[in-house]
């Protein structure tokens, strides 16, 4: 079931438990309309950088452990894909039990496993997502929210993990230049398209300090502003 829309959410959640009760009767219409997927972990890539309020931070990337992917065998042994990420790409794994901020609370671990029902033969089905993503089911629709502030804080914490050194200035400058070029390009089109001016301002604001003062993207934010 695809993500339908996002909306802003300003309140902390009631709790951090999102594992739902399993319906004992397979005929009962209790399956959550989310797709079955595989577990994942975040990886810190020293070349994947994003400016958050003008400050360069690592932007961790989520990699699922999917059998058939990058040599992963049927038993989903993560050794192969982990080896590719670490040895070939020079990425550093982000510990799955790391303490993070999500929806205004501190939680341990960033992977949530949601029970989405069983199949006819009783096989349990799961949907895995990160703690900053919150799904709310309304009938047969799923509304998805994302805690951008919590994820930005996670990016900062990842940068301080052991084994992750300082960001290389060449990498930071290259990313800055790339974003600035995109901002300039959109600004050039602004005369014909006012929308391009907004995009240019949003891109430039990433590099220049408080992004809250610039036109925001469609991503929802949670909690209070710093």
């Amino acid at each position, binding site marked *: 079931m695809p993500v339908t829309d996002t909306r802003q959410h300003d309140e902390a959640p009631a709790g951090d438990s999102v594992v739902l009760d399993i319906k004992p009767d397979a005929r009962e219409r209790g*399956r959550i309309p989310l797709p079955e997927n595989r577990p994942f972990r975040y990886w810190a890539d020293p070349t994947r950088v994003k400016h958050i309020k003008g400050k360069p931070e690592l932007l961790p990337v989520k990699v699922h452990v999917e059998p058939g992917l990058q040599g992963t065998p049927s038993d989903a042994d993560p050794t192969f894909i982990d080896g590719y990420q670490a040895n070939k*790409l020079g990425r550093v794994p982000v510990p799955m039990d790391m303490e993070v901020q999500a929806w205004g609370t501190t939680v341990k671990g960033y992977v949530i496993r949601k029970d989405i029902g069983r199949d006819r033969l009783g096989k349990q089905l799961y949907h895995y997502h990160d703690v900053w993503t919150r799904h709310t089911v309304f009938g047969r629709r799923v509304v998805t929210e994302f805690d951008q502030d919590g994820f930005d804080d996670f990016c900062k914490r990842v940068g301080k993990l052991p084994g992750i050194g300082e960001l290389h200035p060449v990498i930071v400058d290259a990313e800055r230049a*790339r974003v600035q070029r995109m901002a300039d390009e959109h600004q050039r*089109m602004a005369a014909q398209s006012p929308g391009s001016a907004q995009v240019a301002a949003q891109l430039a604001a*990433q590099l220049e300090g408080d992004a809250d003062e610039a036109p925001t993207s469609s991503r929802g934010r949670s909690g209070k502003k710093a």
Partner: protein
Amino acid sequence: MGANDPIYTTTEPGSDLLVSAVTSALRLSLLDRSGGGLLANPVVASGFIGRDAFMKALAAQVVSISWGADKFVTTAEGTNFTIYDLASDKSTVTPVRKGFARQISDMMRSFDSMSALQWANFVREGTWAWQQTVVSVMAALFPSFSATGGNSGGNATWGAIVADYLAMGQANVPGPYVLVMRPKDWANVAQDAYALGGRVAQSAQTDQFLQASNPGFKGVFMGGDLWIYTSDELSASGGDTISGMFGMGAIDWTARMPAPSPATRPLFWSPLWGVETDREALKSDDVIAYSTHLGASIGINAAGRQLPFVT
């Protein structure tokens, strides 16, 4: 989606079909079934490791050799030329078994007056499902591209796409390239084009954005060097959805099926996937099983880029 029920007269869709039979009204629901278009692209097809090349081992290794990486170097008379290593890299593709099944009762089939559940429909579904599965597996590789472009936290724009297209060329990746993005990202780019009046100086290709927004092939841009597709199969990462732009050699993949065994009752059988039935006589049910053996890996990592755009 409801519980995973077999197709009986008392469960959906069987119960609904029986009512619909009075009006004979039937149609397909809204889903992304566009994967076949992407798989037919020559860039994607070039990464396929066929059965003949992949016969004797559980994993196929594809080797990339850096012929032409070194240049002639000045060397004084009487001095040996330098002997350089011939650099190479390799990727390993390991197929795994994938599939799913449906179950249908004799009772339901006997009341199927609209032929909604005829065997040909199951075969057609197997084709769609296999294509979408391959696209999904490839899309799951996009976060493993080292090069990152796009606009994390922001909407997709034509400017971002062109910037990444040019970056691919700078990385010595020969065209054409394939870009796979979400329908929503495509819609954002198309809205740019509408706002720009459908035409931008020096970029008449934005006219082509004013097309239907249904999933699938969107068109060929940049003078035939960039093929754009949309798909719902992309994966998310940190509030972004990861699109991918790649050229030949970026993704190696394989799919295979053996010849059916004497006990197999195939509805459809190909070297890539199969659809077969099995009878559960005690229940008067038939099980239709879809199966394949599928694997994909990053080949030349520098031949692809991940493009995160806000989900």
